[in-house]
């Protein structure tokens, strides 16, 4: 396998990804670590914005403390994953930060980079949360042209119901 896109967020999931490449999936030649900055909180607000509005939003956030914090957060996350993956012997890791709507940006990046596989974590959202905030893993799974692997980090699957209390953003 040549190229894999791994979409990461603040939740700790590196163990699962590592065991994936060690046990189940061939280790890829190139890894792209992607983090999408969500400019608009957790609502689906961004999904409703048009291209023009989105770019206005991006513009207006430039240079603000909020954006600086998002950037720093993104760098922390990507550095964490990069070092974890590198420590276990995976090579050619590139990090990418994008901003905007989660699933859209993942799909766009995957298409631009022409990857062979997308790896992302299950959002672990309950039904209601999914309804309100949308679900990137589902959107990506539905619309991607390449295979999608959905990992199950802490609090996913059947245990999703208990997830809300454990919303642990480990890396901040």
């Amino acid at each position, binding site marked *: 396998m040549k190229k894999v896109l791994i979409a990461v967020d603040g939740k700790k999931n590196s163990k699962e990804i590592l065991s994936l490449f060690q046990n189940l999936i*061939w280790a890829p030649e190139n890894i792209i670590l992607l983090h999408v900055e969500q400019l608009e909180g957790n609502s689906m607000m961004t999904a409703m914005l048009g291209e023009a509005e989105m770019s206005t939003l991006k513009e207006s956030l430039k240079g603000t403390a909020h954006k600086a914090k998002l950037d720093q957060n993104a760098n922390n996350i990507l550095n964490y994953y990069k070092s974890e993956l590198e420590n276990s012997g995976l090579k050619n890791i590139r990090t990418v930060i994008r901003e905007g709507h989660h699933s859209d940006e993942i799909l766009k990046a995957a298409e631009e980079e022409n990857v062979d596989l997308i790896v992302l974590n299950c959002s672990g959202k309950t039904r209601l949360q999914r309804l309100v905030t949308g679900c990137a893993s589902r959107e990506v799974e539905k619309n991607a042209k390449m*295979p999608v692997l959905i990992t199950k980090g802490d609090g996913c699957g*059947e245990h999703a119901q208990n997830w809300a209390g454990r919303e642990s953003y480990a890396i901040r």
Partner: protein
Amino acid sequence: MKKILIAVDETSGSKAVLSVFNNLVRPPEEVLLLHVIRLEGKSLMIDMLSEAELSTLKESLKGTEYKETLEKKAETVLGYFKKELESSGLISVRTIIREGIPGDEILKVAEEENVDLIIVGDNGKRGLVRLITGCVSKDVEKNATVPVLVGKSDASAKKYDVKEAAAAV
């Protein structure tokens, strides 16, 4: 110990699991090949049945010609995929036939057999068809406790087809 569950049906989207399996996945020790027989056609009807009703349905279908056709189809499907997998050098392929709701049965088997990965195809359902007939990959993705790999075929990239939607109704 690596065990992989591959769920297949007769749609062309299922063939995507083969390419995914050959290209991406490390050779596992055992492959479980699962086909779920849908007793109730393609509608969502079956999702609304309770356990008791479903078992009555199973009971009443036993021995009928309809059931025999379904079983024959299941064996053809599994036979095809088994041959394909074995031709790529894999020895330990076990086939399983289940009856009921595909999403549920896939999850149940995954749990019972304690698999490490589930591979499903993407049937390319979009929009209305997806809404009416449900989508196995979505159900599995949502509720599984192990990683889920969704294969993609060329068919899944095709545009949403109104005619197909009408046919499904």
